């Protein structure tokens, strides 16, 4: 793999950038792999990378029906944090956070991971209670998180309206200072390039149309473009399309796919150097290094695979943003779009064995997928390598929906994003 550096950039500029190598190959798939990963999104690519890097399994293909990094990884609002409530989630997301912290260097690809802090504003006593509980838990779980109250918060984020006469005055916020943003495309491309360099075949424009299952055991997948490709183990990492894949394998998931919308303003001079999320008035915002205000909207209440949702959600979100940041009233919204999120009833993911032997699913990340990318890939690679769940993944089994051992992250934390 060609190493990237400032010096390299200078060298290439002298040859008019004509000698840059390809970032990844365009291989024709082999007949058989040790592991097939379905879905070249962030989680799938990360899984492939860690399989090769940490488990020495390089006879791996990632099958992607479109282009790699083309799903939710490229349409999310790039928030990274690990301050989840329950021990199981905190451990998983913190594992991810630690990987984020060295990822640019590990992948030799600048992730632009910026630990600018993620704030959750509190507008009611109930919000305060919820966030204080979160902070107390996180500190003992080894996750940084702290409370700041209105006066201090106003100093830290001057543009935020912390006045008492707001409809829902801001009483305080929890802040994870290690949280922040990363560059979404860089995550997909960085993992793809690194995985490819370790020998993983990234097969784009290769759609899985069926699964080859014999005696309750998967032996391969059938693709539209290349016919059957065999594999010892198959990991399905298809986010919003997981329900469709599960149907192919003959079972159902406790998942519904909903539109999740986001929007950006035109680029303006930076005035917000952190991430602010309000679950109470329903909006969150950060400002990118280009100057766009990146705003997350809510989830539509119905199943939708169209990568678009209803305008009412956009309206409500903008109202919330103007309420939180009155100075955005004359700023203009440039573009909106939608992703498909696979939402679990407990707002926690599934990293699990399935009723089909050697077939594993990694899905149900809902709105939390981006931040989980490195950790998810890392533990799922372990799961695929060993044929059983990584200890951090164990609680996130499919079976929890039968036993009732849910990890309910929206009930308590109210912080699904």
């Amino acid at each position, binding site marked *: 793999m060609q190493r990237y550096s400032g010096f390299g950039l200078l060298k290439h500029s002298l040859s008019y950038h004509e000698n840059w190598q390809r970032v990844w190959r365009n291989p024709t798939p082999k007949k058989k792999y040790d592991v097939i990963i379905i879905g070249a999104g962030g989680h799938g690519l990360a899984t492939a990378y860690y399989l090769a890097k940490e488990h020495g399994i390089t006879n791996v293909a990632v099958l992607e029906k479109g282009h790699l990094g083309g799903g939710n990884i490229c349409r999310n609002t790039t928030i990274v944090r690990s301050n989840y409530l329950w021990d199981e989630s905190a451990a998983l997301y913190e594992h991810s956070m630690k990987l984020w912290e060295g990822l640019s260097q590990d992948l030799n690809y600048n992730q632009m991971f910026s630990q600018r802090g993620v704030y959750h504003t509190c507008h009611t006593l109930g919000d305060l209670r919820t966030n204080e509980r979160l902070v107390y838990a996180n500190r003992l779980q080894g996750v940084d998180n702290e409370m700041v109250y209105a006066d201090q918060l106003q100093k830290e984020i001057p543009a935020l309206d912390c006045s008492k006469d707001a409809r829902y005055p801001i009483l305080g916020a929890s802040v994870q200072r290690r949280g922040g943003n990363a560059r979404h495309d860089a995550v997909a491309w960085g993992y793809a390039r690194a995985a490819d360099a370790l020998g993983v075949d990234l097969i784009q424009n290769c759609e899985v149309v069926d699964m080859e299952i014999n005696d309750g055991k998967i032996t391969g997948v059938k693709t539209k473009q290349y016919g059957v490709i065999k594999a010892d183990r198959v990991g399905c990492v298809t986010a919003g*399309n997981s*329900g*469709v894949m599960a*149907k192919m394998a003959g079972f*159902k*998931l*406790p*998942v*519904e*796919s909903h539109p999740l919308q986001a929007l950006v303003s035109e680029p303006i001079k930076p005035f917000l150097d952190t991430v602010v999320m309000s679950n109470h008035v329903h909006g969150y915002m950060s400002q990118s290094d280009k100057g766009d205000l990146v705003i997350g909207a809510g989830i539509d*209440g*119905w*199943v*939708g*695979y*169209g990568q678009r949702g*209803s*305008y*009412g959600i956009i309206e409500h979100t903008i109202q919330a943003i103007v309420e939180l940041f009155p100075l955005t009233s004359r700023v203009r919204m440039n573009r909106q779009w939608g992703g498909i999120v696979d939402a679990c*009833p407990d707002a926690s993911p599934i990293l699990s064995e399935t009723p089909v032997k050697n077939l594993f699913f990694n899905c149900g990340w809902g709105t939390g997928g981006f931040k989980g990318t490195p950790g998810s890939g890392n533990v799922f690679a372990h799961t695929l390598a060993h044929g059983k769940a990584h200890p951090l993944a164990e609680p996130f089994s499919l079976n929890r*929906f*039968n*036993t*009732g051992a849910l990890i309910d992250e929206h009930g308590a934390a109210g912080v699904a994003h």
Partner: protein
Amino acid sequence: MLHIYCPHCEELREEEEFHCSGEAHIARPLDPDNCTDAEWGEYIFFRKNPRGIQHEMWYHTTGCRKFFNVTRDTQTYEIKEVYKIGEQPKVVAEG
């Protein structure tokens, strides 16, 4: 923004008046106490979640407060039909 025909009000209304309550035709098991955990989990959590034709239940929150069923394409968002609780859909997914 969906435009939904309410079979009780008998006209098209805006999505804001409604609340979607998920997959339709999920009957509560008649003898819950004799269900296994897996059967109960199936009832309360597991969903078809189709890409394509889906039957779902909507509630006319600010209108007549009646639940009813909608057959909708989850890919194009087209509403194919609307029918009352207790009735069966005419449009169903292939296969």
